[in-house]
Every structure is written in structure tokens, then in C-alpha cells.
């Protein structure tokens, strides 16, 4: 799914990365705790989060996460946007809550970047 399709599905605003809307995304990870993102997220995924601070952007950068979707209409600071620009991380912003955001994207074919924390479900992934 292209970033532009994710934007359309969630009536999202593109805050950073107008030039990267053609990026293809197949997996996602949703969390507000960056501790968990650093432990479980995989490169290339979409990070769905309600945490809109610089640390979320820096976490995404560390892991080569493709883009951040800020959910629940969380307010964004200039600093957050400035760091996302500097590190080249696209930012989408939606008023949908995390559950709705994840559900709508899953329905359209995105999958978790991992299934379970112990990895036991991974064998069954066909795609």
C-alpha cells in the first residue's frame, strides 16, 4: 500500500514527506511506548503512535521505519516536525484513534511487522 493510500484511508494530513507518498508499505507496528517499538518493530514498517515527541521520530530513524502515522489527533510541536524533516521521516496525522487506524489499515491488507512477541506465529505467514 502506498503512503498516499494510507493518507486517503484515514483522512490523514501529510505533515512531512509530500515527496515520499509513493513509498510502498506492507507492515505496521502500533504503540505509544517507544521501549516496545525499539524491542519489536522492524525496518520498513509504518509506526502508528499517539506519541508525538522528538523521541518517536528518533526511534523511527534508529530502526529505519518507513513513516509515522500520528493518531488520535495528537498535537504536533514545531520541534517534532523539524526533526522529522531533518531525519527524513514522513509524518501523517489523523484524528482516528489507534484502534480504528490499525483496523482500517489491516482490513486493506497491512499486517503486523511481527505477529507475536515470541515469534511463534511467524511461520504461518504466507506472503
Amino acid at each position, binding site marked *: 500500500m502506498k503512503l498516499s493510500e494510507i493518507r486517503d484511508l484515514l483522512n490523514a494530513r501529510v505533515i512531512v514527506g509530500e515527496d515520499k507518498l509513493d513509498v510502498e508499505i506492507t507492515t505496521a507496528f502500533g504503540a505509544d*511506548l517507544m*521501549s*516496545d517499538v525499539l524491542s519489536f518493530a522492524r525496518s520498513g514498517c509504518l509506526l502508528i503512535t499517539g*506519541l508525538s*515527541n522528538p*523521541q518517536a521520530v*528518533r526511534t523511527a530513524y*534508529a*530502526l529505519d521505519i518507513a513513516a509515522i502515522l500520528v493518531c488520535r489527533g495528537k498535537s504536533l510541536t514545531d520541534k517534532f516536525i523539524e526533526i522529522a524533516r531533518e*531525519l527524513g521521516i514522513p509524518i501523517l496525522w489523523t484524528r482516528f484513534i489507534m484502534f480504528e487506524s490499525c483496523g482500517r489499515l489491516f482490513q486493506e491488507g497491512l499486517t503486523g511487522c511481527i505477529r507475536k512477541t515470541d515469534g511463534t506465529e511467524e511461520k504461518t505467514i504466507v506472503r
Partner: protein
Amino acid sequence: MSGDDLIESLEGIYHIQGRDFVDAGIVSSEVKKSLQGKGIPESIIRRIAVITFEAEINIISYAQQGTIQLFIEPDAVIIEANDMGPGIADIDLALQEGYSTADDSIRELGFGAGMGLCNIKKFSDIFELTSEVGQGTHLKSIVKLNG
């Protein structure tokens, strides 16, 4: 490895002030930038960026001040995090997934799940953690470049 060799392979030294949450994570970002364009595989740079991130957040969260040093050897990257702080009384306990003494200011930042040290260990090929209560904590992580 002699001391001189280590100094030669020093790529960067970053100073970290405890409780200075505003720029938390910047050392990880800087370390990652400095590793790019050196022929190091992306997956290895990611591991180093995560290790640095977790170590950096721990120093900011728990210590008065500290440093992170990055060494690039021909066959490995070494991350050393040293801090002056309260130290860790029970290292085995601190290494247990979910154990955390993080306060609200750390949670608000998005951290404090008790995962960081486990994660550093998981992403390291060699992991050393030593601490003296009342003095500080020393962490050394080695990531091999050849798999």
C-alpha cells in the same frame, strides 16, 4: 587489543546530561549518521542505533551524567556507555524483562517498560554490564561486522 589501538578506533564521544529529556535520542541519531557511508550493512547500523538509544535513555533517566563512546574496529563496532549515577544494585534483576524503576517523567517520554537492557543484550554479540552502587554503571556492547 592495546589501549593505543582503542584510541585510534575512537569514532566519537558523546556527553550526556542526566534528566535532560529534550534532546533524548540525539546521540543515537548522530551515531547512526556517523556510521553511514562506511560500508557497514544497514541491519548492523540499526542494531547499533538501538543499542545506543537504549543506553542513552538509561543515562538520561537514571544517572547524573555520562558518556557514550563509539569505536569502529576492522571487525566490530564497540559502544561503551559510562555514567556517574546511583548504579544498579542487582544486575540480574535489572536485566529481567519488565523490571523498571522509571518514574512518570520517563514514561511520558515513551520509555520505562523494563525492556531496554534486554534489548541491548539481544542486539549485542558481546554484552558486559558492571556497576557500583553510588558510583555509576558501565556498559560495553560489541557488534561484530561479519555476522
